[in-house]
């Protein structure tokens, strides 16, 4: 693909990565305990999968990490900041991005604009520069466009660049949402069921993208996923939640052998896998 004659090669900065520590986090809604003193750490550069039956508190944990929920007890520390007391809109500045279980894209914008919004925190020009556009405003747009094009190349969505997101197929929307989070150039990426509702081929693509992002861009990834095959294949470590408690944490191999996990979650499916 020909880029601009004037385009400079854009340097993807290796994002700043830090260790994420979840310390004794408890979250309840009224009488329902969504999370009960969950503690885990996520090391820089790893892929950590969170699994568990429906209603185990996986998404609640993710929402706590990105400050959408405020846990009643415990701390979540990233880069010496307690995320429990941070506003959601400040997290991107720390380098934390996420995708949602039910796609939450800006459905009336084009794919390109959705990804450009991912660059929002890196765009510093004020509203008056925006209104004048020509000059500094345009230069800033072009500068960030170059980064976004790299995300587009990585995720192979060149052909839908200018399409409205709302009109895209489900699988593509999931990919665009991943792209939007990636456009932020995050150090830690939270993925909430990135492969839900996809066919085998789409799942393979998505798994490949996740591995590429992790290996080539060096992004730490925490993902929630129900497909055991995928989880066991791509993740470095697996955390298992059941009724809001962390019942196991370890490599896929360890988790698979854990009797508590077999009882709570894997059950018959696991027995079949063993065969």
């Amino acid at each position: 693909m020909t880029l601009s004659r004037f385009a400079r090669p854009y340097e993807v900065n290796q994002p700043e990565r830090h260790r994420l520590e979840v310390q004794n986090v408890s979250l309840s809604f009224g009488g329902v305990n969504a999370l009960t003193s969950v503690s885990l750490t996520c090391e820089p550069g790893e892929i950590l999968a969170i699994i568990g039956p429906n209603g185990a508190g996986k998404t609640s944990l993710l929402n706590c990490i990105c400050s959408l929920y405020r846990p009643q007890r415990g701390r979540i520390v990233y880069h010496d900041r307690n995320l429990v007391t941070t506003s959601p809109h400040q997290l991107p500045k720390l380098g934390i991005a996420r995708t949602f279980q039910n796609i939450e894209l800006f459905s009336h914008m084009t794919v390109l604009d959705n990804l450009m919004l991912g660059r929002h925190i890196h765009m510093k020009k004020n509203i008056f520069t925006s209104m004048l556009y020509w000059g500094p405003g345009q230069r800033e747009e072009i500068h960030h466009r170059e980064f976004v094009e790299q995300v587009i190349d990585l995720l192979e969505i060149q052909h839908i660049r200018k399409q409205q997101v709302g009109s895209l197929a489900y699988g593509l929307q999931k990919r665009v949402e991943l792209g939007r989070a990636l456009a932020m150039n995050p150090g830690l990426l939270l993925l909430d069921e990135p492969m839900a509702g996809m066919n085998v081929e789409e799942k393979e693509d998505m798994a490949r993208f996740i591995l590429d992002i992790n290996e080539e861009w060096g992004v730490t990834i925490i993902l929630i996923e129900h497909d055991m095959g995928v989880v066991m294949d791509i993740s470095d470590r697996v955390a298992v939640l059941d009724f809001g408690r962390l019942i196991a944490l370890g490599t896929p191999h360890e988790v698979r052998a854990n009797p508590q996990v077999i009882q709570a979650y894997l059950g018959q499916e696991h027995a079949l896998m063993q065969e």
Partner: protein
Amino acid sequence: MTATQCGVFHESYGSDLQLRPTTMQRIRIVLVLAVVVILPLVANNYLIRISNSIIIAAIGAIGLNILVGYTGQISLGQGAFLAVGAYSSALLTTYYDIPWPIAVVLASFITAGIGMMFGIPSLRLKGLYLAVATLAAQQIVQWVLNNWDPIDGLQDGRATNALRIPDPKIFGYQLNQDEKAFYVFGVLILIAVVIVTVNLFRTHVGRAFIAIRDQDIAAEVMGVNIFRYKLLAFATSSFFVGLAGALLAQHSTAISWERFTIEISIQYLAMIIIGGLGTISGSIYGAIFITVLPELLREMGDFLTKSEVLNADDFRLYLPFIQRGAFGVAIVITLILEPEGIVKMWRDIKNYFRLWPFSY
């Protein structure tokens, strides 16, 4: 002739970001500008007066569209913000002897401030609830207009409800008398407003507004400070609405509170809904439609009375009701036929002719 190119191949991001990349689009915009230039040379005073109302309405509608169409914050306070713009420019020229062009700019900034203040509830309120909260703005401002002493003007020694405004003059032309001079002045301002707002939505600030409308939680997680950007949307929107109000004041000889009621707020909402929510051109189409419709009905009535189909007295009696009825019918019909407004109709027409006559 109406066909646009089938493939546009850009060689730089700069050219890809152009607003009108094809020759056909450029020809169209030149045609529009030509009409705008030729109109005052051929039209009579009455037509130019209507054009001036359209210009003011268009600026106000663009302002409202920034808030409602682009940022998704429904506002019923349009009349109030127009009033703030109109009265502050009037009071600044009347009591402080500030030259009117400076007063107009100051009035816009004052309206932006007031708009931001009434935008504070948007932190907690969404949709219809926010609409009710902005209704408070409407009521408060209207109460102030009715009860605050300096606003009741003195005319021939008698206190009136209307505030008289010193004649605005520019290069020897008196804008409230000379419709043609106001037209030139107004068109230049409208063009500036259009350019500025179009640019706004090409960059990250405008994108953040749209993001808040489409998915506010996702926008927040992507690093948009929701509250700040909502207030910014209120301020930007109110700035242009205040500008429209100030121009309205300078265009009229006197202003009174009846011109800024809730009915005006709803009329402006109708403009942007009929024209097309979240589009700049839609605001202008809507402004034209809503301003021209009542005039058109009156002309039609005049024609019918002249040809003695209608009794003149009857007609004059029923005209306001017919106008309102037609207004309502127009909104309902647009919403049923094309919920996305005149903009979408125009886009469909363009697409049809782009492929014409081989549409497959």
